[in-house]
Structure formats: structure tokens, C-alpha cells
């Protein structure tokens, strides 16, 4: 009974967030335009070798898709007191957090799906292991959305969330193998790269589109670990705010 109530609450918050925020026409158009512009920019700049770059582009779309709107939604709701409306309800903090993370993951999933479609049709990306691709992407979306939630629940203002997100997002783009293979980085940067979740997203997507360079199971396990750590830290931030 309790579990069913919690699941119903998660589903209700997810639907509400999709309807009230994520599926608004400007967000849908951004979700479609952002991958198109990104894919076109790279195609025009360097039409060769883009098949290698494609998994990185999908990973980048997942990163921006999950963290951008989620940070706005959570901080906006905090600001206008609407988040408190959720705290008033007979729901655990864990359920509220999961609902918010799922919202970010669904939106990130939409943008990643558009980017995947573009990479397949425009850049000739071939998904050799569709299950690994879908599973890896889904886990990555959860991990990255959990990181977005951690940032959003730790700050007060929308601009703080965006600034803090950029501290993570931009280094990740350059360090996590999106453009430059992690293996070719100097050792200290390689160490940093392996401490960031996007590295494992890129590795997983690359493994499912090309030939696996490392054990994908390890990447999956590390992404689960990242998700768990981010969720636990966010849960703690929520409880601290309650005190």
C-alpha cells in the first residue's frame, strides 16, 4: 500500500512536471533545435570522421538535456514555494527526488533520441548493440539527471544552478572523451576524467556503436554508483533544508 502510494506520487509529479514545464512548446523546439544545430555545426566543420564523434555528441545532448531544464524547474519551484507543496504531501523525500530526477531524465532522453536519430541519418552512426546503447543511455540519463538534481537542490536561485552546472558541464565536454579520447590525455587529466560520469556514458555509447574498448559492464556499474552517490547527497541536501 505504502509503496503503491509512493509510486503513484512519483508518477503524478513526473506527469505534472512534463505538462507544466518540460513539454512546453519552447522547450520542445529547443530540444529539437539543439541537437540539429550541434550535429550540423560538426558536419559542416569536419565532415570526415564524424562517425567516431557521434557517440560523444549523443552523450553531450544527454548531459545538456538532463541538467538544463531540471535545474530551472527545481530552483523555480523552490523560489515560488511550489516545491513546498510537494513537501506538504504524504510522500517521502526520496519519492519527490526520484520524480524530479525522472523528469530531467525523460527530457534528456527526448533530446538524446533526437540526436541519435540525426547521428544515424546524417552522420552514419551504426548501433551494433541496441540493448547496450539503450541501457547505457538510460543509466547515463539517470546519473546525469541526479547530478543536475544535486546542483539544483543545493542552491537557491536559477542563475546559481546554471553557473554551478557549467562548472561541471564544460570540463566534462573536454575531459570525458567527447572530442578527445580519454586515453590520449595527460595522466592527471585522465584521473579527473575517470572521476566524471560522462566519461562512462561516452565509453558505453562508443562500445555499443563501435567495438567495445573496455568492459561495458564496469561502465554500467560505475554509472549506477554515480547515480546512487548523487541521489544520496541530494537527499541529504533536501533534509538539511528541512532542518
Amino acid at each position, binding site marked *: 500500500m505504502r509503496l503503491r502510494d509512493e509510486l503513484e506520487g512519483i508518477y503524478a509529479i513526473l506527469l505534472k512536471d512534463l505538462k507544466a514545464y518540460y513539454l512546453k512548446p519552447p522547450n520542445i523546439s529547443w530540444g529539437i533545435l539543439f541537437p540539429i544545430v550541434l550535429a550540423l555545426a560538426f558536419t559542416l566543420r569536419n565532415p570526415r570522421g564524424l562517425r567516431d564523434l557521434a557517440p560523444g555528441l549523443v552523450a553531450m545532448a544527454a548531459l545538456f538535456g538532463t541538467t538544463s531544464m531540471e535545474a530551472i524547474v527545481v530552483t523555480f519551484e523552490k523560489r515560488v514555494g511550489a516545491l513546498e507543496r510537494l513537501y506538504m504531501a*504524504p510522500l517521502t523525500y526520496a519519492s519527490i527526488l526520484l520524480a524530479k530526477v525522472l523528469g530531467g531524465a525523460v527530457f534528456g532522453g527526448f533530446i538524446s533520441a533526437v540526436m541519435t536519430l540525426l547521428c544515424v541519418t546524417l552522420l552514419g552512426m551504426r548501433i551494433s548493440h541496441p540493448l547496450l546503447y539503450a541501457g547505457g543511455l538510460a543509466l547515463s540519463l539517470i546519473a546525469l539527471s541526479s547530478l543536475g538534481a544535486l546542483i539544483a537542490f543545493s542552491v537557491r536561485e536559477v542563475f546559481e544552478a546554471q553557473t554551478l552546472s557549467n562548472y561541471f558541464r564544460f570540463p566534462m565536454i573536454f575531459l570525458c572523451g567527447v572530442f578527445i579520447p580519454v586515453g590520449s590525455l595527460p595522466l592527471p587529466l585522465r584521473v579527473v576524467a575517470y572521476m566524471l560520469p560522462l566519461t562512462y556514458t561516452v565509453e558505453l555509447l562508443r562500445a555499443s556503436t563501435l567495438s567495445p574498448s573496455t568492459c561495458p559492464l564496469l561502465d554500467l556499474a560505475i554509472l549506477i554508483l554515480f547515480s546512487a552517490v548523487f541521489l544520496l547527497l541530494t537527499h541529504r541536501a533536501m533534509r538539511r533544508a528541512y*532542518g
Partner: protein
Amino acid sequence: MHSIVVEGLTKYYGDLCAVDHVSFTVDAGEVFGYLGPNGAGKTTTIRMLTGLTRPSEGRAWVAGYDILNETLEVKRRIGVVPEASNLYDELTVWENLEFISRLYHVPRAERHRRIRELLKLFDLWDRRDSRFRRLSRGLKRRAVLAAALINDPEILFLDEPTTGLDVVSARSLRGLVGRLREMGKTIFLTTHYIEEADQLCDRVAIIVRGRIRAIDTPENLKLRAGVKAILEVELSDRPPASLLERLRGLEVEGRQLRVHTDNPQEILRLLTGEIGRSGLRLLSLRSRSPTLEDAFIKLTGLSPEVMRREKGI
């Protein structure tokens, strides 16, 4: 039977003690007012009782459940109207209530019937398809009140329900609170409007700087404060100092004089004589029984004007 039991509830924010060891009980079906100026600790108390803020010390039971260890059970049995109307701007009134009903696990079969009933009770039926952001402030408050009742709660917490409303909307909302009382709901109401507490509440706790100064029925508070009958006089001009010296204990506000007395007839005789000798004219004269506002002033030493100013009204 008590719906709410509070024992030594305390909240510190750093060095600031926002609520200082408050204790009280609220009976089932009672409208209990929590009256005090801004910053007195009213909202902090409500937040602790509704599971939104963790107390630093003390304990409380709401609907028989411990607010610390059985928070979800408490939340299932209460409805909360926060000071801010915090429903979702992008959703319609109907969608908002449907969303809240899901959060409170209202059975699917009952959901729509209950939403319909509440929308009709609060005269929102015609606005059910309007987005929340398009409603007037008064209608927003009604929608928030309807949302707080979606789970048919035993106890309703209303935090400054009429703040910021125009006179007509405030009166209408007070009428609705009266109807909820008739429905047998226990109501915990915070307000800085003294007349609102006087009209609506069975008992009132007066809280100032985190401490409860008095708890009783409005009538008993007036008696306890020992407030006397009041004569209010308006003069043609400001009274001269000589008049004020002769009639000590007068309160003066511009051309208006106020005097508290248990012998209005004698004071009236003295006052009219002195006014005549000062060459002033008496424009109006009013005698009235003490109000809760008078008791509040006496018990707290605060001016009700201070409370209004603090709220920016």
C-alpha cells in the same frame, strides 16, 4: 479529545529562538487562533506541526501522531493553506486539484466527485478550466483552500489565509472558514488580524517573540486583560496641553481622545466640562465595550498598528 497536543515546542535558527517552548492543546472541532505580529513565530509553529520544519526541542502530536516520527501519517490527515498561494500557474484549477488528489492518494473512483464538490463549494466551478495564474488573488486563495481539503483532512492549518485580500474576498473566505467549522473540521489558524481571530476562533493564543503570552476564549481574554469600557471623542481641534494635564490617562491621536474607564458617566461629565472651557467643540462621541484588540494591547503592550505596518497593509 485533543486534535493537536504541543509540549515545549522550540525552534532555533542559529542564535535566534523563533519559537520558545510553546505548549498548548487544540480540541477536535475547535477553531484555534494563533495571533501575533510578524516574526512572532506563527508560521514557524505551523511549519513544525505540518512536518515542514524540524523542531529543535519539544514534541507535538497531530491527529494522534508524533510529528517527528510519524510525519507521513500526520501529513495524510491534515490540509495546509500556506501563506503563499503556491499551486501551479501552468495548470488549470481542475488539473491542480487532480494533481493534489493524486499526491494525497485519493482513490481514483472518488477523485473527480470530490473535486467537483469542492469546486462547487468554493464557487470555482465556472473557473475550473482557467489556468491558476489567471485567477484573482481571492480566487487563488479559494483554490488553495479547496486543494487543502482534497483529502478530507481532520485538521486544517491556515497560515494567514486572508492576508493581501480585498475586503470582499477576505469576508467571503472567513465565511468559508465558518462553513468548514460547521463541517466539524479542527482549524488551526494563524493571523495578525485581531478582529479575524475574534470573529472566527473558539480560543486564541497570543504569541509575541516566540512565546505564548495568553491562551483563552476571546471573551475570557478580554476579561483577563481587565479592559474597561472605552469612550472615544473627536474634537474640533487638537486638545491643548492644559486639558490633557487636567484629565490624566487620556490617549490622544490627533483630534481624537480615548479613555478607558469603569465609570463612563463620570468621565463624560468631566470631559464635556473641560472641553467647553478649552473653547473646543465636541464633534462626535462614542462609547464601546472592550474588544480583543484592546485585550491584545493590554496583554502584549504592542500596538495593532505595528502589526498592520509590519505586514505592509
